[in-house]
């Protein structure tokens, strides 16, 4: 955030936050197995902070529940995210944050795929390729200044 002197998108459109997931009776029933569903994955990533604005990815509509696909039995998760502007230089960073958040929050059995919503970014393919490459993600997290920014995105926002 400090590296950019000028915000790329100074006045983004702000979207409403969705309400907290309602607790149902089956959530409290010991016997019932709750499958991991789209909403649960969305809840994991919606509160990630944007690297540029004091807003969450949900408020910027970068992530949406409809763009989350999960298969609990097959252990796969797919997340599409939409940068606010097609030339957003933060796209890789946002993707990395989502990926790290999911890596930290999901059971190991899951295969996690994070990519840009088709047709919403200029260098879509390059970013997708970076995010899909395990080695590069691991290398990125070795870089302490990159890890610092990612951790800031993942820190719970104070009031």
């Amino acid at each position, binding site marked *: 955030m400090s590296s950019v002197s000028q915000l790329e998108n100074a006045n983004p459109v702000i979207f409403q936050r969705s309400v907290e997931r309602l607790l149902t009776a089956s959530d409290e029933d010991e016997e019932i197995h709750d499958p991991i569903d789209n909403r649960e994955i969305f809840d*994991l990533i919606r509160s990630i902070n944007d690297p540029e604005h*004091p807003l969450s990815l949900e408020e910027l509509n970068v992530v949406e529940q409809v763009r989350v696909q999960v298969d609990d039995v097959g252990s796969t998760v797919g997340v599409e995210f939409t940068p606010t502007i097609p030339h957003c230089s933060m796209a890789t960073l946002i993707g990395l944050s989502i990926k790290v958040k999911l890596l930290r929050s*999901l059971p190991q*059995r899951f295969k996690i795929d994070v990519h840009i919503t088709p047709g919403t970014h200029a260098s879509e393919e390059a970013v997708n390729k970076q995010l899909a490459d395990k080695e590069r993600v691991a290398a990125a997290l070795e870089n302490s200044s990159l*890890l610092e*920014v990612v*951790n800031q995105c*993942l820190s719970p926002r104070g009031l």
Partner: protein
Amino acid sequence: MAADSALLLSLVEEFVSGQQDSKAKDTAKGVKDGQFTVLQLVEALGPCLTNSQAHTRARGVQLLSEVLLECYEELTEREVEVLIAFYENRLKDHYVIIPAVLQGLKALTKCTVLPPGSAVSMLRSLFQDVHVQSLMLAERACVYNMLINLMESREVELKGLGADFVFGFVQSMDGERDPRNLLLAFQIAKNLIRRGYNQGKFTEELFEVTSCYFPIDFSPPPNDPHGITKEELIQTLRDVLTGTPKFAEYLLPLLIEKLDSDVQSSKLDSLQTLASCVSEYEHKDLAEFLEGLWTSLRREVFQTSSEKIESAALAALTALTSCLSRSVLNSDSEDSLSAFMDLVLKDCKHHLCEPDLKLVWPSAKLLQAACSASNRASHMVTAAVMPALIEQYNSRTQCAHRRTLLEVVQRFVQSVKTCQSSDSDVNMFSDFREALCTIAFSAISESNSNLQITAASVLTSLAQQKGLLSEADIQRAVDHLCRLLLIEDDDRVSLAVVECAGTLAELHPDAFITTLIPKLKEHMFSEPMDQDREASEQNTHHALRQRCLSALAAVSTQPCVVKESTPVILQVLSSAHKGHGGFTVEEVVQACCCLQRISEKVKDTEETGRCFHDDIIPRLVALTLQATLQGESPLAQEEVLCALVPVISTSCSRLQPQLAAQTADRLVSLFLDGDVSFLPDNSLPANICLLKPQKQHDDSCSQSQLVCLLMACVCSLPKTLEVPQCDRLLLELEGLSCTSLHPLSYTSAAKCFAGLVNKRAQGDSLSLLIERTIQRVCSELDCSSSSVRTQTFTLLIWVSKALLLRYHPLTSAFTDKIFSLLDDAELGPMAADSFSLLMSDSADVLSRGCHADVRIMYRQRFFSENSHKLVQGFNAAPQEKKPNYLKALSNIVSKLPQQVQVTELPALLSLLLEALTCPDGGVQLSTLSCLQPVLINPPQTLIQQLEALVSRLLVLISSAQMNVRVASLRCIHTLSYFPVHEVLPFRARVLRALAKPLDDKKRLVRSEAVIARGEWFLLGSPGGR
């Protein structure tokens, strides 16, 4: 006398040459006791004071000053005069002497006998001879304290000094850096301003010298011994800066400048200072800065980054607008309020009409903030904004847009409500009434649930505007609400509708009596499902009845409505009893809850009292009595009876004490003598015995269970009312509670007994009663073959609770019995559980709502008197009994207030850690819930046992019980906030262990695991913590 002067000389000698500081105290004591006078002291000091060595002189003056600090009250005016002259002269002396001189002067400023003119001369010499900022911290504080003392006692004299005083002060504090001294300096500045000292031409200097600290940026050092907080400094400085309109021309530009800052706290401080300063200002002070202020405020709201700043900006705008509205206008000045409102409207209004509605909320909030400031402002805003909003709403087609606009309208109506004075004759919205109603009614008729909800709140706000809506409007609103209640099955909508109906019914009861209640009644009793109808349809009908019942409860706040609504509910109960209408037990329970809500909310008038005591309660008792005698009806079910208890108890505790006494009288004679004459139904048998356990029957549906209704009534009477035939009643209740086999019967009898004991007046009869009870209880419990041990134990717990609450001295006889039962093979687990009952509030008896005698902090008292017994018992108990003690402990501790937990727990820590390994899930859970608040501010003892704690918690995250898993994960989450160097060694281990619950089968567990694991990942990582 000679001895005294020798003593004095030796004291002086030892202090000055011997450097013994304690001698000053001795000397002061001598002066105080009259052993020697101040004059003698000065004479004795003579050689030192005239010594050529500056250090000796300093030591001499120091002794004198310290003595004066102790004995300034005993000086005469003459002495003071001489001393002041001396000290003033000494100010010119060598710098090492100055600290002592200032101490002495400070002592003298505290004198009540200060000769006239001396204050002025003291200050003149001070300002002339001393450069305050080159003194040390303590000496600077000394100067400020002198000023404060003199300002307290010599105000008139100091004012005579004129602007010189202000100038002197400005010079002394210029460059002050220490927060402790700043607090003093700000206090002086505040006094200068508030008490009307003449500032002459030094106003700007005074402002400069204080405002240079604004905004305060101060963080106290760790383990701050002085206890000065940033907030304290901010507040005192704000008092100075906002104290006078004379500062306006300097302060306002400064605030505008600071608002541009990037630092959040300085923005916030500026906004709050702005809001508080304008309360002193007039429009002419503000005039030239209005534009700048508005630009800054607008920017803060439009581009806000935090809610705190936004709300501070809005509050500042409200304050600013009300300042402008308050000012008296001259004939030649222009109306600054209307000029300002033009500015606001020009910048905000067009955003309300933009096609994408992007800035509609910030603009609306700004306008509403201005609107709520004053009557005139709201007139201007509504006149300009309302037509535009109405037109916008009508021209939009998207539901989301319409809803936004509707919400904006609602906020406007709401914001005007806060400022409308009672004497205003015409409502501000009367011009828009028709249009607003049309909008609201059209929105509520839409199919979109969000629109319906918003429309309901618009209707509520409109109805709260005095004299705005006409009868016909209300009628239409009621029709709409009624329609939605009957057809809409979205929970959020019906909640909003019920809420709206509740508010409207309080203001306009008539429409509800004539339309809504009859209609709901009709639909509730409409012949529901045949057996062959589909289950889904039965569900919808059930949901409809639920909505109708909650609506009935919500609208019944006015006595006249209650009169109409309660018969409907009673009819539900009686048809359920007769088996008509297909009411389920759940619906009956709901009807009871509905009655209870009414009895809680309704206004306590003669009329409602009669309604409840003469009509509802007798009918309820008659119905349940019949039901119990027949045994088949849903009204004989335990859950229905338990739902009826709060109805009776609330009406007896809350409504019309005289009538409640009458009800109690009737119920007691019904239960003791079988007197059924007051019951509306005369088909009942004449001699029924309700307080005798029926051993011969199968006890599934015992008549004696009705004792819970008696309990509800007699235990909730106000303390002033006597319970009729109390002794006989107690005897019968004791008998029933110790002999009945039916759990509801013996528990209710025990509770009723306890409730009466709790309120019984102190005295011999009470002591006798208690003695009798304890004997009976102990003899039953000690006989291990007795068949009624459980029953007796129930009585024991409830009576213990009754006595514990009122601090009765015999309490310990009962509670010790419970402690001893922890080792009992049969009752041990029950005894452990009973502590939870003892420590928690019970809903139906022995609560403050029932006028019970409840002393404050009885829990803490019980804990501090008994915790050692538990620890001893635990250590002495055989292994298989230990869990009982742990459970008892966790039951007690988890009910203590958090502050007490935090202070008391370190002592019990090893026991609690032991409790975590106890196999009982309940013990684990309550121990975890006690531990968690303690973990937020971990005591040192806990950190020493971190290894044990972590390993035990990590075991619990794979517990079989879901809530134990959740609670242990929460504790592990809290652990991550411990000092980093303490927990970092556990990071890898915890992260590995937390991977497993991420795949838990329950979502609630997974989400806790995610939060905890996320925090542990951030621990010690760059960018984390």
